[in-house]
Every structure is written in structure tokens, then in C-alpha cells.
């Protein structure tokens, strides 16, 4: 597993920033679903690539790693498992040679009548039944794509009651039984803790940090008495505290990524974004080794 250092989440609005300040980031994380149009299951071809976006990513991928972080799998959907999506990610692996890939521990597809896509990652029920289903599906993903597959802890604003397991236990068991890794989104964790009145520094210790391959950092906003995972600006200080806390405790860590929705870039501004990435690089340097660039890292893969 190469240690890539500090990454940034790709958004089309960030293209000039990515090119101009290419020393501020070590690798690029891409939500692949925004670089294609998914026409739906069974359509041929189902996935139509955005040629302009793909060309940009391909250009960057010549000397940086590009790591996909998909939103489309809906691995927690009980009514179907989207094997075509897995095949599409396998095609992306052939194209980009990514060192790992990830998706969310959630579902957004359900079938009340026709299939709906609720446009938001909903929390899976942390029950044995869901665990069995997801373990099996992770196995399929791993058999199809040879590099590590990670699932991200979800953010949520409501929670089912009386679940068999809590989230850290569910994720630890999922990682142990399926062989997947954990993408620990520190902002998601912070958001959930803040809304539930929990101490994130204590909660983070309950996760299986040995399984963490990637960390996410982001910012949010207040809304109707809740704090939202809005990816709308700089990360709050407690998220940086969490970063400092966990960086030395994750032996399998490959990278830490800053997420910002492109529509907030102008509001946040170039300088503030550079400061975020700079702080993350400083934190990485305090606790980790020198980031690997693509040509060096590939020799050790």
C-alpha cells in the first residue's frame, strides 16, 4: 500500500486550482460517477463517459495517483446488488491503475414501486442481516478488482433504534470478515458526534484504526439546529484535532483527502483552500513518511 500523502477531491470548478497549485496536493480523489452519465441498469452502453473530464483526469494521472471514491454502488440496498457498477469500476482500474477504491456504507437506491434514487446516502441498519449481505457483496467486489476496497462511515441526521451493533463494531466486523478497509471520514464522525452530543475524540478510539486506509477532512455548516456535512469550507478545529489524534494510530494509512463541493470554491477562496491543504500536509509530515509519487510508488506495488 503506497502512502500517498495529502489528496484533494476533484470537482470541475477546482480544475484551475489543481493545475496552478499542484504542489499543494499529492494525489487526486475522484467521484467517478460525476465523470460519466449512468443511463441505468441493462442499458447498453450504460455508462457514458464525459470526454472532457476524463481527459483532464487522465492528464493528471500521468504523474499522480487518482483514487476513485464512488457514490453509485449503494452497497446497502437490499433489493439488488449493482454488479454492472462493479464492472465499471474494474474498467476504471484498467484505465487508471488506482491503488485502492472506495464507496459508502449506505444505500440511496430503493424500490417502493419503480426504483428510486433518493440522491443522498441513507444509513444502513446496523443489524446482522445487513452485515451478512454487505460482507458477501464486498467479497464480490474484491474478487473482481484486485486492489483494496474501502467503505466510508456514513453521516446521518436520524438513526434507527435498537440496532444489533453500533457503528464502530459493525465496521470492525465488516472489515474483519470481508477484508475491506475503512475510509474514516473524520468530518462525518464529528458531525454525528456533534449532533448526538458525543465526544468525537473518545468515539474515534472505538473504531478499528488498523483497518483505516484513508481519512477524509471537510467542513460543514449549521442548519435548523443540526450541523451538516456540507463540504462547504474549512474544516472545524476539532476535525484537525481528530486528524492529529489518529494519524499516528493508523498503520495501513494511504492518504488523507480534503473534500469541498465545487459550488463552494468561490466562497471559500483559493487562499483558504491552500491553507487547509497546508495544515493537512504539516499534520502528515508530523506523523507519517514522505508521500509517494506515482513512478516511485508503482515500483513497490
Amino acid at each position: 500500500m503506497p502512502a500517498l500523502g495529502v489528496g484533494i477531491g476533484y470537482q470541475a470548478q477546482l480544475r484551475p486550482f489543481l493545475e496552478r497549485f499542484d504542489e499543494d496536493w499529492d494525489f487526486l480523489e475522484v467521484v467517478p460517477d460525476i465523470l460519466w452519465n449512468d443511463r441505468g441498469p441493462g442499458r447498453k452502453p450504460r455508462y457514458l463517459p464525459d470526454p472532457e473530464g476524463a481527459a483532464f483526469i487522465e492528464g493528471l494521472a500521468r504523474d499522480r495517483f487518482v483514487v476513485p471514491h464512488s457514490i453509485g454502488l449503494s452497497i446497502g440496498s437490499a433489493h439488488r446488488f449493482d454488479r454492472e457498477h462493479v464492472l465499471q469500476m474494474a474498467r476504471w482500474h484498467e484505465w487508471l491503475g488506482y491503488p485502492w477504491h472506495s464507496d459508502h456504507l449506505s444505500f440511496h437506491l430503493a424500490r417502493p414501486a419503480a426504483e428510486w434514487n433518493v440522491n443522498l446516502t441513507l444509513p444502513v441498519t446496523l443489524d446482522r442481516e445487513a452485515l451478512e449481505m454487505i460482507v458477501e457483496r464486498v467479497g464480490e467486489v474484491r474478487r473482481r478488482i484486485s486492489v483494496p476496497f474501502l467503505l466510508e462511515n456514513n453521516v446521518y441526521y436520524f438513526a434507527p433504534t435498537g440496532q444489533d451493533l453500533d457503528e464502530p463494531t459493525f465496521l470492525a466486523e465488516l472489515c474483519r470478515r470481508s477484508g475491506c478497509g475503512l475510509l474514516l471520514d473524520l468530518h462525518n464522525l464529528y458531525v454525528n458526534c456533534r449532533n448526538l452530543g458525543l465526544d468525537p475524540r473518545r468515539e474515534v478510539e472505538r473504531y478499528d484504526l488498523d483497518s483505516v486506509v484513508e481519512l477524509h477532512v471537510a467542513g460543514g455548516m449549521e442548519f435548523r439546529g443540526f450541523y451538516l456535512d456540507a463540504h462547504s469550507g474549512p474544516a472545524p478545529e476539532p476535525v484537525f484535532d481528530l486528524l492529529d489524534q489518529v494519524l499516528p494510530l493508523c498503520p495501513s494509512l494511504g492518504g488523507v483527502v480534503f473534500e469541498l463541493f465545487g459550488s463552494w470554491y468561490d466562497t471559500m477562496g483559493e487562499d483558504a483552500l491552500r491553507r487547509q491543504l497546508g495544515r493537512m500536509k504539516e499534520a502528515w509530515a508530523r506523523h507519517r513518511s514522505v508521500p509517494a509519487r506515482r513512478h516511485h510508488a508503482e515500483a513497490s506495488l
Partner: protein
Amino acid sequence: MSLRGYQAELARLVAEPGFRERVRARGGTALGGGLTRRERARLLEIAGQPGLAVTATLIESFRLGKVLQSLPLTRTLLGERQLAREVRAFWRSHPPVSFYAADEVGAFCKHLLRPDAAPRDSLADVVGLERALLELRRLRPDGRPAAPQRIPFRCDPSWLLPPLLAGRRPTGRRSMPCLVLAEREAGGGIKWLVAARRRRMTRPAAPPTREDPCPAS
């Protein structure tokens, strides 16, 4: 089957306002069958959590964002209040089915132009134009650009469009049936122009009378 049913009902709770209200008002009788006792209890408990409304608002904001980004001229013409009314009416009959703006916004355009709504001429013109621009930007299976779009206008585009492009509603009304031609340029941008007054359409191609860059190109 039970987990499928639970997820279907949860999706309705977050994305179907009428269902959410029925569950809050009538409790378990509003839920579908085939759920375990624990799942029913969970859904009822979730229906009462304030975070459910926040989640529903987030979903609506994602859906609204696609409309606002894709239909800037329609937004200006309708105004915020009327647009909000139309969007809410659309959501009542159209649950979310896709991440992608082209699918969502295309369906919303159809909603705006439904015959029973009797859209006024200027709205039909502007929605027709923005729907055509959306079609031009849509990725295609053969990888080739979409064919040029021909949009019939009832109003005079030179009266209707410049104020909308400047973020203002036009005043008065000026009829001029004509055809607007929109096409994708080699560099990916989109240009549109008034190709001909409609009464001339049987003649050989008329020269352009007006050309404006598309604000969304």
C-alpha cells in the same frame, strides 16, 4: 424481503412529503405490509425525529440545485415564488430517480409544459430553449455531438432573452413567431441564434438575424 420493504418505506419517508405527513398523522396504519415489528417501530420512531426533516430538505436542495443550475432563464422568468410552487408540485408527482441533472431537469421541463398548465408563451419559449441546451450537453452513446436543436418561439427572442440573460424579467409582450437554432460548437460551447421568422420557413435557409452566447456554455 423485509429489509427491502423497510428501505422502500424509509426512502418514501425522506423523499415523499405526503407519505411523511401521513405516517406522522396516522402512525403505523400508513406503512406498507411485510415489515417486522422492529422495522415498523423504527420507521415510526424515525418519522418523529427532527433529523428526518433535515434529511428531506437536503434531498430537496440537491434536486433544486439541478433545476437552478440548468434552467437559469426559466428561474428568472418564473420568479422565486412561482418556481418554488412548480418545483413542489413536481416533487409530489415525481420521486427522485437519478443523480443526473439531465434526467431530473428534463422531467421538470415536461412538467412545466404540461398541457393542463397552459404555460404562457414566454415560458414555453424559454423552457423549450433551455431544454434544447440541456439536450445539446447530454452525453450520447455514440460519442457524437447532438444534432442542432430547433426551438419554435412565439415571442420575439430579442425582446425576451436579453433581460433574462441580465437576470431581469422582460416587461410587456412582443410576439414574433420564429425559430431559434441551437448547436454545439467544436470547443464544447453552445451557441444559439434566431434562424428564421416562422413564416419564412418554407424558403431557403434565411441568414441569422441575431446571435448570443449561451450563458451556461
